[in-house]
């Protein structure tokens, strides 16, 4: 099973085993990872599952849609090149081991 590592702003890390096809947001919410809210249920409507993806995994990520792009522009934490919405990233074999950083605030 692929793994995903979530890094809190204070540096602590939690690694989850995630079934293929599960999104970064769903895995985090289901397992009580602090700082990922997913208030809209994965519709790219609320931008409360904003994460920074470490650059070594950037190439394996799905392309960013216009909707995700516009929502990220207005996310609470600063948008960076590595910014993505966790609800738009489904974990597959290629993404196994992915490490993401959680911003300090989502609301």
């Amino acid at each position: 099973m692929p793994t995903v590592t979530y890094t809190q702003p204070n540096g602590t890390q939690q690694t989850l085993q995630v079934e293929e096809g599960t999104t970064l947001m769903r895995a985090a919410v289901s397992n009580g990872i602090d700082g990922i809210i997913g208030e809209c249920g994965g519709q790219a409507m609320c931008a409360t599952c904003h994460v920074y993806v470490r650059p070594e995994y950037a190439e394996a990520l799905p392309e960013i849609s216009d909707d995700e792009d516009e929502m990220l522009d207005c996310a609470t934490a600063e948008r960076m090149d590595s910014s993505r919405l966790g609800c738009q990233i489904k974990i597959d074999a290629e993404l196994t081991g992915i490490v993401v950083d959680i911003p300090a605030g989502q609301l």
Partner: protein
Amino acid sequence: MSVVVIGGGQAGLQVADTLRTEGYGGEIHVIAEESGLPYQRPPLSKDYLAPGQEPAPLPLRGASFFVDKNVTLHEGAQALAIDRAERKVKLTEGSLDYDHLVFATGARNRMLNCPGASLSGIHGLKTLTDAEALHTALPTARNIVIIGAGFIGLEFAAAALAHGCDVTVLEFAPRPMGRALTPVMGEWFAAAHRSQGVDLRLGEGIDRFEPGADGRVGAAVSTTGASYPADLVLVGIGVQPNDTLASDAGLETSNGIVVDETLRTADPAVLAIGDCASFPSAHAQVRLRLESVQNATDQARHAARTVLGANHPYTELPWFWSTQGPYRLQMAGLARPDDDTLVLGDQAAAKFSVLCFRDGVLTAVESVNAPADHMAARKLLAAGTGITRDQAETEGFTLKAVASTPLVPVVA
């Protein structure tokens, strides 16, 4: 010390979360009528019904939340009565004492009572059980009739089309989503759904259902006398607040449990939030009841802080969304049907916003496939930036550009 929250939905769970996160040290009990981990409802009418999915409900919080935050979840339990003098909630089994009680009881679907309304094959959509039944029925359904062109009805219409079904929607009102949207946006959505293949019948209500040869629903007969073949019917005609428990406890109800601007009822130990609460809206400047995730979670955070000793009025900007096939609708603020409107963007390309003005000042924005407009509108409206119609009509005006400059609230 103990807080008892009645309701295991978005509002109920958020109260528990905020209470604990912000330092509440007493017991927290959440009473949830449904069994299993509380889940998110919005995906049930969208992703959950998409073809080819083996859907799983999205939990509101993981199982570890209840352990880590020391929140007691009473699943499959029901609150039967409140004794406010003794500060006690009677449950199906046993009772709980409270120092604060929070009603987060939500709403239930309005039911049809026309002839044939109890035939098999006629569904509602509110709970996971409802969604599971529809998910099972959709792949073999052919002719679908939907009663009500509200959010649920039209989200379901889009899902049914994706399954290759013929879809008819009966709506008594002259426009879809008429309670929530401006006429210009409602009319755009009517045309958009028709272009997708939905047979949208406006000004036409349901008169009765007739059984087919197998005894299940076979046809829907409308108020015009027209008969539409139906092997699956979805009824989406709105909801009613779950406020009986509160009124039985002597609390005032009027289309919801009546609360003040701090979200307390007349009994300061009792609060009500989310779909079940009638509150004085700072934005609409009238008393109203809202059915949305934003309203549920923001009121929950506010109520938790009220329990913790704050005494501020609730003033969060209402916002809302709906996904209907290729159309992503987002609303910021509360539009009124008689608002003055201005369309920005490209309606033909399904990427635009309707700006609503009252007395010449921006009060709400409805957007289709334009999240940048929506997010900017939320920022501007929350800050009380008084965008005027003249300003919005200026060449090159965008909400995003205005929102990215320092915001100056207008002093009335």
